[in-house]
Every structure is written in C-alpha cells, then in structure tokens.
C-alpha cells in the first residue's frame, strides 16, 4: 500500500486543524458596529418621523407608515446604486435587521433576476430571501396571538 492511500489525517483531525486556522470572527466588534449602524438607521427614522409630524401635520402614530416607506425607498435607492452591500459588509446585523434590510433583500433579488423577465424573473424571485421572513413572521405572529387568546380562557391574567 502506497503512502498516499494511507489516511494521514482523519476527517476529525483535519476539521480541527481547519478550525484552528480560521480567523476568529470579531463578535464584539461586529456587535458594536451593528449597534452603531442599527442605531443610526433608527435615528434617521426618528428624524424622518419628526419631519412628517412638524411639517406635514402627521401625528406621532400616523407618521409610522410614511417613515417606513421613506426608509424602504432610501434602502432601495442605495441597493440599486450598489452601495448597500458595502455598508452591510461593515454593519452586519445593523443593516440586516431594520426594515432597510428587508427592502434590500427584495430589491437585490429583483435586480438580480431582471434579466429573466418580469414574470419568471422579478416576480418569482423577488421573495427568494424575503419569503422566509414573511412566512415565519406570520407563523410566529399566529402562535403568539393564539397563546394570547388562550391565556384568558384558561383563567390567566
């Protein structure tokens, strides 16, 4: 038997070697960045809300929807200009979690598949990434609503 047929490293041994070689993910730095980026987006959102309230006669509550729409619009513009993914590489969850991240996932998928036409491309691929968010968002909302309805029935608070 030639040397090359012998197992020099087992899979386990190699996986450990590969793991040790891998750079550690800067978890703390990523958290700080996500906090700063996410916070900045919220700050911008607050600014937009204030503009709607002070200049366009919205109430604090009714300004919510146009604020989200404005943020979504900004996110789509930045995605189309090819900037959003660069910001996201730095910001991580900071740009993924807010509504801007959701808008980016849809806009990027729509852009990506535009070449396959509006029906087979844009229409069917737009929710490629956002689809799971909607499905599991709706599903978990249902479960929570279910629990909330059940608790008073069984004599809870």
């Amino acid at each position: 038997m030639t040397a090359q047929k012998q197992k020099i490293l087992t899979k386990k041994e190699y996986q450990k070697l590969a793991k040790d070689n891998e750079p550690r993910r800067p978890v703390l730095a990523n958290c700080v960045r996500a906090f700063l980026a996410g916070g900045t987006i919220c700050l911008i959102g607050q600014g937009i809300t204030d503009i709607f309230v002070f200049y366009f006669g919205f109430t604090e509550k009714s300004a919510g929807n146009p604020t989200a729409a404005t943020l979504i619009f900004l996110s789509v513009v930045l995605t189309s200009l090819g900037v959003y993914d660069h910001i996201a590489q730095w910001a991580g969850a900071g740009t993924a979690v807010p509504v801007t991240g959701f808008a980016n996932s849809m806009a990027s998928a729509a852009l990506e598949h535009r070449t396959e036409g509006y029906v087979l491309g844009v229409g069917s691929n737009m929710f490629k990434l956002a689809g799971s968010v909607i499905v599991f968002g709706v599903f978990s909302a249902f479960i929570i609503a279910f629990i909330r309805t059940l608790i008073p029935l069984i004599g809870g608070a």
Partner: protein
Amino acid sequence: MKMGTQSWIFTNRPTIIGAAAIGGPREARGPLANDFDLLHDDLLFGEKTFEKAERKLLEEACELAIQKANLQKQDIELFLGGDLSNQIISSTFTGRSLSVPYLGLFGACSTSMQSLALAALIVDSRFGNNVLCGTASHYAAVEKQYRYPTEYGSQKPDTAQWTVTGAGAVVLGQTGAGPQVVSATIGRVVDMGLKDPFNMGAAMAPAAVDTLQAHFQDLQASPDDYDLIATGDLGRYGHQLTLDLFPKYHINMPEKKYVDCGMMIYDQNQPMRFAGGSGSACSAAVAYGHILNRMHRGELKKVLILATGALLSPLSYQQKESIPCVAHAVAIEYTVEE
C-alpha cells in the same frame, strides 16, 4: 504514458502556441494588471446580462489565444471548455461561436488544468493538433448561481473569496519551442467533511496536497524540480493550511516556492478582497497570463499548476452535504529553440 497511479507524462511535449488572459475591473486594479491581454473596465462590457458577459470573456480569450498562435478559427481541431454556470452554458455558447468540435467539461475551479491536461493528452497522443482549451468566470454570474444576489447586504467572513471576472485560454500544438506541457496528475475527489461555502480554501487544501503528493510520488519528483508551484484559488487561509499540511504529507516545500493564484490576483488593500480570488478564471488567468509571461521572460523554467475545485452545488449545500474537492496538476516547462 502513464506513470505511477494517477499521472501522465507527455513524451511528445505539446507546446502552448498561443495563450490569452482576460480580466475585469477589479482584476485591472490588482497587482497583475499588466499580465492580462485585455481588461474590461465594467462588469457588463456592452452585454445585456452577466451571463452574456461571461460568455464574451471566454469568446475573447479563445479568439485572442488563436490569434496569438497565428491560426484561424477553422484551424482549431477541438475545443475543451468549462465554467461555473449551470449546464456550462458559457462554454457551450463559445463552442457555438467557434463552430469547431467541442467537449464540455465541469471541474468547477479546477477546469483550467483539467482541460489543459486533457488537451495535452489529445495532442501528445496525436489524436488532434491545435487543441484549444479554456475557462471563464464572472463575479456576478457566479454569485447569482451559487450564493445570494450580488447587491444583497450579507456580511461575509474573512475566509470568503471574491470570484474572479476573467478568462484564460490556450492553444496546444504538436511542435515548437516555448512553454511545453510535460506531465499531469489527475486528482482524486477528496472530502474532509467541511461544509462552509464561505471557507472553500480550507475545504480544497487537502485535495491540493493529495494531488501534489501523488504527483511527486508518481514521477519521483520533489519541489526542487520546480521553480514555482501554484495552487488555483485556496486564498490566504487555504494557502496557510496547505503549508501546514505539507510536513504531515512529508513534502519538503520551501515556503517561497509555493504560491496561490487567488492570493496573487488581488492586492492586499483592495476593498472586499477577503481571503483572495476564486472562480475557474482565477487559476486560468494567472497561469496563462502572469506565470506564462514570467516563463517567456526567463524568470521561471519549470512550473507546476495545481488547479483546485470545490465540486459543490447550491443544492448539495442546502441539503447539508459536505464539499467534495478535486485538484489537477499540470507541469509546464519552458524550452528554448535549439
């Protein structure tokens, strides 16, 4: 002639009579920019889709290689091509425009040396002359195929790699001085159970070392027989892992002799470079551009190119399969006219 268990020696030494390397905008800003025959300054270069752009890269590389070999399209007896797109469409469409006998190959990023080894086998055995082989990859087309939409804001880890936009092609002929293909080692599929598609270097490194060890054993050779040994696209972390693996496989490799094309193609400071370049064009463009140029300048006499390929599909990854990898080695020696 077969040597050992998995190597071929080409006694008639097929010659690379024409070679071309093409790059995209990011490659143009890299340290090897001067070694490309043609550089594009945007990702679409006048085409409507990224898939068409990928095809154009391969078509241009083939045309340039044929032109540099002082041949016409109709002189090409066979075209061997492959790429990373579904059903290797870029190669097939290139075959359509070349209109010569065509064999499509899939070896992921190992396609460059897979096709070169087969082309050398065909030319060496006199089953064909003026055999063209090449491969291309396009950042946006490949990302779309394997990962997320290009503009999707996902944070990539440091071990991720950037797909090279480019192409490389060569024409092999039966006679002549110049860079000659002298031997090849066909790799086994090696899978060490790694599953992270953002760390392909680590998945592919064992395949590279396995093929390299087989090459040295089959040919009773050692790193001393080569001026340069280059892996295809292991990137920074894969390169380091490979260096760590050499002593375990009893390969005595001088550190400076071993390089990785994925590390060479981009500059340390380029934004979003991550661990380096990848893609089937990575080893093709670096080998057929930079490395062949250095051979022509007399800086290198004998080199070994080890193209590494991760043979996963998006489906196999989603079904939690590990990443099978392969590496093919081809030795090229420069011969001056007597």
